[in-house]
């Protein structure tokens, strides 16, 4: 039984890993444990656990229909395992959903907030009902083991309702398998045309039957390997024969659908989507169908395993393609599941596997006790089929499994990203503030500094001004830099002690305080506001209180009436400063540039309106008092800075 112990050990380990992720999934949220993005909100959990899980569970209704509806009683021996697989498959789907949906405690809501126009609403109901039906279908297997009259009565009632339950199961499955395809009908804009089709529900349904058959084959092969039990090969080859027909039909429907909608040319377009599609069609349908069409391959374990394995893999790939891979071309974003997502997906499957082992080892899943006239109430521990004693309850095994579980749990916790903080914002690649040198000089006419880019040839030229240490800051990460005079800021704010005014403000993610935190009115007129002039003008109307309305407030710019409240329409057309994409220089407009752009338009406009009253309004000297007479010209919008080659060279 080393095989059983080995497989179970691995499964317990994987469950332990998933348990670690589970803790953080519910503590820290989806952002921490998934790689999902706003443009790819559905990922591995929907693609594999939900879409794949439901499809893999299709064996249940296919075999139930075969046995009960078509009266092919020889398949009865695999009915119970198939129903059990389906039941556990659905349990896995529900489990996967609990991880994936953001607010799992609201999962019951579709029951009460009916939204019959939503495909997901239908899916939710089908999952709910069919899971219940599957449990009822399987329950007799458990009930038959207990002598209690209540359990026996329940057993008899359930047995009595077998046929209605089976038919209800088939009805629900038909809807459900196809409605998973319906989910994507509303996304023609997301799904690649090769996968999108108005009859995608039909694709899903037919492929589910094919997958159901091949999954039953796979599952029989695996359990016969693990328990070294006899393989019902003639049964399996019968299933394979049916699978061949279904898979051929599936391939035919797919291709005919493409032809009918005029999409055949996509098939050999050579894009990676077309390759993926062909690959998927080949391994999910064509290869297994071809294999299963040969009687020889059907009779050999290798042939069965290859065909069923390919089909199962191919169809799961199909579900993942539809829910994710086929949307990449539209959304232009890539998504690759994080290891934590894989851990959950694999962990759920492993847990289902363990449950399967438990049920197989403790109940009559693989045979019908009544037929064998055995004592049906005997609680078996030997495997009913292989007759080998199982060590489920042996202490040594329990110790081994729990050790593996705990080790995996610890490993998972250790590996968790952002274990304490939860998810942190990603560093979007930014140019760090770059250091450059510039000449700094102050003209007598203006309180502002003028900067010229440092040129070693001019180093000795006294006119060029002192050399200053500058920073180029790209605050909004758009590759446009602000020229920041670090030295002057430091000096004006009080020398070296002032660093803390901008740095280390203990704001989350803040390395240095943004400019606007101090220059609150950067976007509006600032120093051009002539306080004296306004005070003089408004003397008659009350003076200071005209703007500083609230006597309790400090008389600062922040608390004063905004300019726009008196000067309506202060901002005239085109007076805003926005760096144009077209003439990028790599450097954001400087203060001077900004002020010019803000003011000049208005000055020009006002000049036109009242030429008599203010003849010089649109002249440079209107603001730049004391300028040379030769500068008395009508201004034009300030020219954009020339290429800052020197700056970017450094």
């Amino acid at each position: 039984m080393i095989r059983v112990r080995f497989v179970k050990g691995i499964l317990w380990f994987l469950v332990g890993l998933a348990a670690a992720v589970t803790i953080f999934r519910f503590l820290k949220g989806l952002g921490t444990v998934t790689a999902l993005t706003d443009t790819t909100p559905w990922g591995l959990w929907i693609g594999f656990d939900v879409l794949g899980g439901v499809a893999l569970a299709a064996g249940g209704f296919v075999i139930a229909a075969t046995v009960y509806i078509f009266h092919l009683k020889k398949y009865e021996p695999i009915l119970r395992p198939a129903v059990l697989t389906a039941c556990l498959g659905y349990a896995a789907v529900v489990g996967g959903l609990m991880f994936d949906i953001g607010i799992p405690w609201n999962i019951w809501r579709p029951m009460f907030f009916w939204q019959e126009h939503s495909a997901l609403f239908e899916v939710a109901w089908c999952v709910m009902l069919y899971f219940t039906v599957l449990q009822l279908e399987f329950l007799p297997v458990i009930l038959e083991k207990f002598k209690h009259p209540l359990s026996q009565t329940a057993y008899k009632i359930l047995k009595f309702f077998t046929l209605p339950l089976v038919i209800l199961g088939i009805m629900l499955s038909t809807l459900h398998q196809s409605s998973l395809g319906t989910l994507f009908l509303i996304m023609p804009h997301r799904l690649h045309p090769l996968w999108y089709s108005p009859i995608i529900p039909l694709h899903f349904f037919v492929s589910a039957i094919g997958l159901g058959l091949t999954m039953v084959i796979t599952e029989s092969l695996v359990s016969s390997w693990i328990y070294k039990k006899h393989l019902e090969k003639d049964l399996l080859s019968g299933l394979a024969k049916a699978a061949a027909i279904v898979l051929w039909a599936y391939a035919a429907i797919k291709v005919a659908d493409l032809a009918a909608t005029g999409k055949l040319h996509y098939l050999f377009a050579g894009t990676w989507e077309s390759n993926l599609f062909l690959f998927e069609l080949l391994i999910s349908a064509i290869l297994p169908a071809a294999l299963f069409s040969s009687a020889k391959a059907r009779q050999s374990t290798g042939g069965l395993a290859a065909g069923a394995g390919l089909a199962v893999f191919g169809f799961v790939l199909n579900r993942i393609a539809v829910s994710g891979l086929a949307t990449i071309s539209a959304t232009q974003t890539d998504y690759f599941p994080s290891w934590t997502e894989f851990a959950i997906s694999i962990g759920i499957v492993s847990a289902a596997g363990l449950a399967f082992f438990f049920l197989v080892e403790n109940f009559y899943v693989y045979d019908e006790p009544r037929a064998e006239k055995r004592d049906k109430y005997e609680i078996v521990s030997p495997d009913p089929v292989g007759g080998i004693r199982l060590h489920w309850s042996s202490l040594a095994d329990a110790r081994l499994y729990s050790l593996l579980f705990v080790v995996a749990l610890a490993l998972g916790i250790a590996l968790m990203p952002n274990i304490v903080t939860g998810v942190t914002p990603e560093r979007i690649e930014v140019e760090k503030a770059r250091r450059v040198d510039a000449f700094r000089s102050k003209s007598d006419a203006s309180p502002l500094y003028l900067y010229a880019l440092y040129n070693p040839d001019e180093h000795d030229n006294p006119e060029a001004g002192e050399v200053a240490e500058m920073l180029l800051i790209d605050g909004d990460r758009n590759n446009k830099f602000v020229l920041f005079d670090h030295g002057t800021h430091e000096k004006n704010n009080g020398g070296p002690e002032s660093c803390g005014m901008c740095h280390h403000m203990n704001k989350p993610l803040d390395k240095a305080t943004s400019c606007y935190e101090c220059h609150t009115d950067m976007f509006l007129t600032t120093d051009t506001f002539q306080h004296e002039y306004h005070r003089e003008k408004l003397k008659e109307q009350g003076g200071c209180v005209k703007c500083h309305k609230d006597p309790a407030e400090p008389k600062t710019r922040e608390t004063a009436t905004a300019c726009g409240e008196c000067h309506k329409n202060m901002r005239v057309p085109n007076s805003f400063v926005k760096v144009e994409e077209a003439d990028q220089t790599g450097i954001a407009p400087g203060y001077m540039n900004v002020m010019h752009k803000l003011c000049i338009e208005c000055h020009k406009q006002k000049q036109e309106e009242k030429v008599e009253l203010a003849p010089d309004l649109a002249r440079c000297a209107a603001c730049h008092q004391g300028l040379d007479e030769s500068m008395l010209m009508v201004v034009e919008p300030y020219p954009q800075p020339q290429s800052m080659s020197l700056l970017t060279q450094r």
Partner: protein
Amino acid sequence: MRQMSILTDVTKCIGCEECVKACKETNKTGEDQPWRWQRKIDDLSATRWTTILPRPDRHYVRKQCRHCLEPACASVCPVGAMHKTPEGPVVYNSKICMGCRYCMMACPYGIPRYTWADAVPYVRKCIMCYDKISSGELEQPACTKACPKEATIYGEREELIRLAHGRIEENPDLYIPKVFGEHEVGGTSVLYLSDIDLGFLGWKEDLGDEPLPMKTWVVLNKVPGIFVGVGVTMFGLYWIIDRRMRLQEEALEKKSASTDAQHDPETGTDKVEAKK
């Protein structure tokens, strides 16, 4: 019912982002962060319900929820958390949302965003300031109010469409002769006038005029029929096959005088339960 709408004239927008700021302040969306799950920091996000996309040659295009007349997001919501109000806005009820994110998958414009960083995450998108307008706190959305250029305006949908066509007529050389959103995906409540093509706002250049929910509905409305049909067919098949097998058995029994019931191993075991 009057459908309230927003008309944005791309040719008038100067990209000052006053609307973005107003929206953030009014709806208290919080600070933008460079999260891993958004494409760019200045794209829409859970904290940025409207944004300005710069396009070449001084074009600024405001992006926000289109408030479709037949919204895909609302039609797919399995609990009705996303829903269309009679006044026009498509709004979201975080109390009943279960976080399936189907709305995010279905929206042809890729609008709804998720607060992935939170342990209890919600969907976020522009709600046309529905709460503030219906409570009377605001007369019009914060963004349209804030626009200094009247590049984006609020009004009754019919009127805005008329106004838009008027502008196109007045200035046929400037505009693309089409009101974006008048017919797309069945019509949207956020309309655009533009001199550049706005196909980039959707996942696909041309989304077509058919309302997206119809694509699902043509299948979903057949569901009850299929459900009953499958049930009837299955029972019918069962009945026919069962009857035929019984007849066969009887014929066999008659033929061979031997009355061994276990003679047929294929049907023997299940006779009890299947025929009850």
